[in-house]
Structure formats: C-alpha cells, structure tokens
C-alpha cells in the first residue's frame, strides 16, 4: 500500500502557547520532513502533549504558525485536517461502552459515508490483525486490560489512515514485549506506508531503540533535536531530567543506564525479619 503522494512536512515556526498567563511553549521552531518515527521526550508537564495538540488544532497557538505540507493548519478545516493527521490520546475516555470493533470504527469517520461500512470494517479488522488484537474484536471495550485499551486506541488512530499520526504515550501501559512490538510496528509502518509517526514517550530506551529522530523538550523549548545518539547524551539527560546516567551503545543505538548517587553505593540493608518467600 504505497502512498502515491509521499511528501510529508511539518513546519512549526515561533509557536507559543499558554493555558493561562504563563506560557507552556515558548518559541518552538521545528521542521520535520519525510516519513519516519519521531519521538518527543521531556519531563512531566513540560508541554509535550500541548505541542501535539497545537499540531492537530485541538489547541491554537497564541503565536506562531504550524504548517502541514505548506498549509497553515489554522486555515485548514478540522475535516480536512482529520484526513491528514490522526491522533491517539493518552487515555481513552469514551462515555459509553462499545465493542472493540465499534470503538475502532469511530476512527474511520473522516473517510466514511453511509455506504462505506463494509469497506470500513475490512480496514478495522485488517488493523486489529496488524497489532495482534483480532481476538478482542467483539469484546466490550470496558472489559479490557489497560494495555489492551491502549492497543485498541492505537488501532483507532491507524484506521484513520493519516499521513501524520500523533501518539501520546502509546506504550505507557504495555509490557516490554508489547512495547517493543508496538513501537516496532510504528517504525515499520512509517516506512511501508510512508507516514510520519510522532510519538511522546517516557521510556528513553524504547524510544532510542526504534526512533529515527527525537526531540527533547525542556522549559518550553526544544532543547535538542536529532538522532537518538545526538539527543540522548549524558549532559542532555542531566540538564533536562536532572538525572545522572551512563549511555552505552548497543546495536548502534544509545542505551541509558540510570544512576542515582544518593542511592547506588549507599543502600542500607533490610533487617533480617523482612523477607518474602515463594510457597
């Protein structure tokens, strides 16, 4: 399923945003060109979700412009934008219980019409199979585990068939195997279908392993942008997260080992009466 039009470009220029008087994003400038998996990292509350919301018009920047393929999003209708940009929120908060198929089907909205149900269902089932949750199809969305929820939400973003897919911490509830699986699928999908996947992540090692590029937010600005190796340096991690670390390279990707000087070499042992035992 090769996309005919492979041009994908996001230009963010001088974007500022604040929920109240004090700004969350200050003067963000970024160009992203071409299909890839791009991770956004940064500490809690730094504005990662806010930045994503500025890209797909959930929020409007107080200053600056966001252009997608050269078109200013502020003058693009939500409908047009929905065909280009997909979004998967941090947590689903659907009001009433639907089955998994019905939940994912909602994501087809921008492309569907009264007659497209059959085609839409094909795409839904195809996607469920792609991320290995076909067996959940008829289950009630409410009765799933947190990780299964997350995969269903991801499926909803995928069936939207966007050129740009924005994911807010898509793997935060997944076990290591599924974190790897989902992130790998995202990376491969970006190349196979020629889409730009932008993912917020708190797991630096997963992000480093699969991302083509990363940006690191700090204090409302882009502190670093580039390949994982360029971004994930000991100094950057120290400044942005205030965490000491060691970076080792494994299979050409940086791997972060966290250090804690207050703890590592200074662990007081438990008293003898405290134990656990498998019986």
């Amino acid at each position, binding site marked *: 399923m090769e996309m005919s039009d492979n041009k994908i470009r996001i230009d963010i220029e001088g974007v500022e945003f604040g929920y109240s008087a004090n700004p969350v994003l200050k003067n963000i400038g970024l160009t992203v060109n071409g299909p890839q998996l791009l991770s956004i990292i940064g500490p809690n509350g730094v504005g990662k979700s806010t930045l994503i919301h500025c890209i797909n018009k*959930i929020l409007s920047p107080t200053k600056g412009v966001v252009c997608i393929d050269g078109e200013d999003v502020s003058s693009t209708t939500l409908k047009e934008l929905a065909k280009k940009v997909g979004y998967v929120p941090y947590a689903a908060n*659907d009001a*009433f219980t*639907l089955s998994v198929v*019905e939940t994912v089907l*909602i994501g087809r909205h921008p492309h569907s019409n009264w007659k497209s149900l059959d085609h839409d269902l*094909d795409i839904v089932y195809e996607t469920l*199979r792609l991320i290995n949750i076909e067996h959940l199809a008829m289950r009630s969305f409410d009765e799933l585990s947190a990780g299964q929820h997350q995969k269903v939400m991801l499926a909803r973003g995928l069936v939207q068939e966007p050129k740009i897919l924005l994911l807010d911490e898509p793997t935060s509830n997944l076990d290591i195997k599924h974190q790897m699986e989902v992130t790998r699928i995202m990376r491969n999908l970006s190349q196979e279908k020629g889409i730009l996947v932008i993912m917020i992540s708190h797991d630096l090692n997963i992000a480093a392993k699969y991302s083509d590029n990363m940006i690191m937010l700090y204090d409302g600005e882009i502190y670093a942008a580039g390949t994982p190796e360029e971004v994930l340096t000991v100094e950057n991690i120290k400044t942005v997260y205030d965490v000491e670390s060691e970076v080792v390279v494994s299979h050409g990707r940086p791997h972060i080992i966290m250090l804690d000087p207050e703890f590592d070499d200074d662990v007081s042992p438990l008293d003898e009466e405290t134990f656990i035992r498998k019986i």
Partner: protein
Amino acid sequence: MTFKEGKEEYYQGARKKVLFTTLCVIGVVAAFMISLTIGFYDLTVVECYQIIINHITGNIEDVMGDDIVWNTRLPISLYAIICGATLAVGGAIMQTILRNPLADPYTMGISSGASLGASLSIILGLSLWSGFSDDLSLVTMAFVFSLIPVGVILFFSIVRKTTPSKIILIGIAVMYMFSAITSLLMVTASEESLAEIYAWNIGSLATITWPDVPLPLIVSTLCIIFLYSQSRSINVMMSGENTSRSLGINTRRMTMICMVVISMMTAVVVCFCGTIGFVGLVGPHIARVFVGSETRYLLPASAAFGALFLLVANCIAMVAGTFGLPVGVVSSLIGCPLFIFLLLKMRRKAWK
C-alpha cells in the same frame, strides 16, 4: 478466526439490533390498534373498527362513538407515539453528546421552564397575546418559557468554552431558579389552579385533541430525521472532545446544533401534554441494553422503544382507576421495575 468470520459476527450483531427495532415497530402498530379499542366507553373491538372504517369512508352512523374513537382515542394514541419517540430520541442524543448517562431531554431545563410558563398562564392568566384562548395561552407560554433555559445555556456556550459537565450544571442551576419561581407562584394559587399545574407537571395525554397533533408531528419528524442524518458525527462525540476534533468534528458547534434541535422538538411536544418524565431518561437506556450505544442503531431503537413504551403506558393509564391516571405516573410505575430488572438481568454492559 478469519477476516470474513469477524465481519460476519459484526453483521450478525447488527441484524439483531435491527430486529429489536423492527419488533418495537411491530409492537407500536399492534399497541396502536389495541389502544383504539380500550377506554371507558362500552364499545366492542368490532364496533371500534367499524367506526373508524365508517369515518374514513365518510358515512358516520354513530356520532357519539365517532367522537370517542376518532376524535378522542385516535389523536391521543398518535400523540403517545410522537411524544415517546421524541423524548427517547432526545434523551439518547443528549446522553451521547454530553457523554453522561444521566442526561435527558430535560437536562437543559426545558421541563422547569415549561412548568413556569404553564404556571404563569394558569395562575396569573398571563398570555403572549390577548386574543389567545386559555388553552392556547397555556401552550404558547409553556413553549416560550421552556426555551429560556436553553437560551441561557447557549449564551454561555457561545461566550465561553463550556464542557458537558458545565452545561449540565448550568441546566440544573436554571432549573432550580425556575422551580423556585414556580413554587412562589403556587403559594398564591387557588386549589383548582394547583391541581391543574400539578397534573400538568406529571404530564397527561388525556386532553390531546386533533388540532394539537400536526405541529408536534411535523416538527418531531423533521428533527428526528435531521438527528439521524447527523448520527455518524454524533457517534464520534462519545470519544471525547479531543478525539472528536481530531476526527474532524467541531464538537462545540455540533453540541449546540443538537441542543437547539432537541430542545425545539421537546418543547413543541411537551407544551401540549406537560412534562412527561422517565421515558426520556430510561427509554434510551433500555434501548442501549438491546442494541448497544452506536448511534446509528441507538437512535431508531430509542424512537421505536420510546413510542411503544408510552403507548402501552397510555393504554394502561386510560383504563386504570376510576377516571384513568396521568400517563406520566403510569410510565414511571411500570417503567422503573422493568428498567431495574433489565439492569440486573442483562449481561451486556452498556455503561461504565
């Protein structure tokens, strides 16, 4: 499981949903036929249909019977269908767009506004125009006042960003204020007026006559058709504001449009028969138990079930007691146990 099987499973579910709606529609037709034959006059089933056939063919033999069946029972039964369908659809859509299972068509304060309007008309004899008859004054006052709370909510939605919870809270606040004014009026009211207001608040179809039917019929039909045409977008709104926006829906505009349409049809229906409760809140929930929450199935199912429910309640209301009971009372009396039974009995989870 193969691809085909998966889809087939979905379609199977869909067919069951359509079946539920179809059964309700058949039920409506049956209940409608039956409803014409029951009441306080001793007319046999055969006589009733003879009267109807006679009326249609234009040779009325039994003037008295014609008056009972054609001029009394027929408009009341028709109105029960219109009213049940309107309130249940209004409730289903309000719940969906406000993402709240406790929402109903009265969430926007329509009922409190309508009773204030009715009270002003009954107690103080206020009217919008001096040329109106008493009945018409009541209807028009109820209609106009029922839309005031909606106006307030819309005003706030336009000047400020409102969330579903805010909309519900503003609705409740306005409702309390209007109820307070109504109570104040009632303190000064005569006993007769009190009884009349009280009956109006419970809602009754007993006073419905032919001239009351066309306007609600037309308005409700148009509004329900419009809402159905928007059902795909409305369905998306269950996923919350952010997801809806990213799927191309202007949630704020959609919420306002739906609120205007629902309050129009509810106000038009309610101003003739009083604030019949229950069916607007519970009707859609009972439908959800059978068809789930996907709007394209829920809307027709709610309409059909709401109509059936109110029609049956009205049949019972007509024969219960010495002079019949208000339909509002009967619908709650039989509806609540039914609803709780379904809640406990059904496996399908329709709510969180």
